[in-house]
């Protein structure tokens, strides 16, 4: 098949041999940037991070959240699909029967080890109920201990309540006895 070839230009003339013209052209550009930035910060692209934040795109995959139904209860039905598809094996789910028959199953525990998570978004694609989302827009997660990265169900749950008259409040969700027992260890295996 035909294709076009272009030889790069590596010629070198008197202008290069004198050193000064090359440096002068470079100085022209650097000085332009220098004066524009000294006078009015016209070209500056850095942002002052903690005060200013870069707008992230709509599709940005940040920290997970668990969405809720209209009545305020979690949408998750503990079907284990996200746990299965997760390449990093960072999701740990334990299903439980809810006293209300209309709810079928719900996650007694839903823990994500955000340190293990690779933020690939496969769990979001796999979820059949739109129960897990990564659209919180959280860019940086920085904490002082490893334990802080273990996000339990209650931490992941969406803070937003769509309906004022909710059937279930937060208090209705059965909780694990203590935070420690709710957390999987770093390999995703539930603690004994």
């Amino acid at each position, binding site marked *: 098949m035909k294709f076009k*070839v272009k030889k790069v230009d590596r010629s070198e003339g008197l202008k290069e041999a004198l050193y000064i013209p090359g440096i002068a052209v470079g100085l022209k550009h650097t000085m332009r940037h220098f004066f524009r930035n000294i006078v009015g910060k016209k070209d500056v692209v850095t942002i002052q991070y903690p005060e200013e934040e870069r707008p992230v795109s709509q*599709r940005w995959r940040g920290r997970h959240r668990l969405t809720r139904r209209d009545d305020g209860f979690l949408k998750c039905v503990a079907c284990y699909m996200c746990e299965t598809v997760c390449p990093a094996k960072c999701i740990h789910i334990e299903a439980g029967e809810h006293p209300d028959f209309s709810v079928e199953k719900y996650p007694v525990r839903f823990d994500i080890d955000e340190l293990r998570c690779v*933020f690939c978004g496969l769990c979001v*694609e796999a979820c059949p109920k739109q129960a897990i989302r990564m659209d919180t827009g959280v860019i940086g997660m920085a904490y002082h201990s490893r334990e802080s990265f273990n996000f339990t169900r209650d931490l992941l749950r969406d803070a937003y309540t769509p309906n004022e008259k909710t059937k279930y409040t937060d208090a209705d969700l059965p909780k694990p006895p203590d935070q420690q027992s709710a957390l999987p260890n770093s390999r995703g295996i539930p603690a004994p």
Partner: protein
Amino acid sequence: MNASELTTISAEELKPVHLPGAIIPAPPEDSDTSIMRIEIGPAHPAMHGIVRLTTYLDGEQIVGMVPEIGYLHRGFEKESENSKWIQVIPYTDRLNYVSPVLNNIGYSMAVEKLFGVEIPRRAQFARVIMGEISRITDHLTCLAACAMEVGGFTFFLWFIKAREYLYELLEQVTGGRVTINWTRFGGNSTDFPDGFLKEVEVRLEKVREVIEEGDQLVTRNKIFIDRMKNIGVLSKEKAISYGFTGPLLRACGVPYDIRRADPHLVYDELDFEIPIGEVGDSYDRFLVRMEEMRQSISIIEQAIDKIPYGPVMTRERYLGYPDKKEVYGSIEGLIDHFKMVMEGHHPPAGEVYQPIEGGNGELGFYLVSDGSGDPVKCRVRPPCFNYVQAMPELALGHYVADIIAIFGSINMIGGELDR
């Protein structure tokens, strides 16, 4: 390429003295000075991947070098063999982490070849656009790092700034900047958002400006030319024997581009030139990459003109998840979805090798399937591996300061080298 152009490498040139790992120089007999061994890397500012070059110096001249790699080995192949097919895609982002889209595309294309399916045309164009953006980011990073190490720090930051413009584009489509996980088997996970292609054109114009500015700042500066010219020369024949591909081989004057040699996606509908060098030194590599970015910009502009409307994912049930509407609405859809997630993809038994033109050269995926949900073998053919192997030959006889010029111009990426 003409058959008569290439001669087979002679037995003389293949003498084991050039085989990396076999160079242990003897001290010169007529002097009372000794060969000095100096370790360059892994904890060294110029080794922007992690690699160790044990260098033997006579004065400042390099008389021997032993590269040692493996500091970033993460067991990509082992991990892939123990994952489902789809779970490998996020892992490929971490191979060549400055052009993750190309890795995604390469792996997905290999699996699609295994399935024997063709993806929709819009998806193909989308892959070309995103892949070329990714190639530009790759070259920007490489050139920036290369120039920085010979002192052009301003050039470095300007190019990183340009790269940032493009990363934000990638982010708009994929939701990630480096770890993008964008392609799927049979198409792409997401289509472009509204107004994206217009945005691409605007940003490419900005990138082009930065490239021209950087070009004038550095490439025509005599100091830079002195640093790069005739440094790390490798002859055409040797480069081929070393398995050089991509910009490095093109710098030697061989117009071998997989986009043209093994046409994939829709590259044969697009018009672009293959930049080649003359000598095969660091300067040629620099210029070839510089020119390739301009060509990539033109490819993207053409692809934007030609991209058709349509789906970005095949309708094949065994490849992708069903539509969300079906999943939420119908029991069949839900069952399909459940089976897809739980059992994964099942490519037919067989083996394929799929090369694509990665940012750095020929990025090949060799996959073996036995028809089950896991790959039997998922092998990456990393382009860098050959380059680092040729490092002693490139550096021999030069000065210690030339190591960085050579090493910068071969663009070694640790994630890809060690997998």
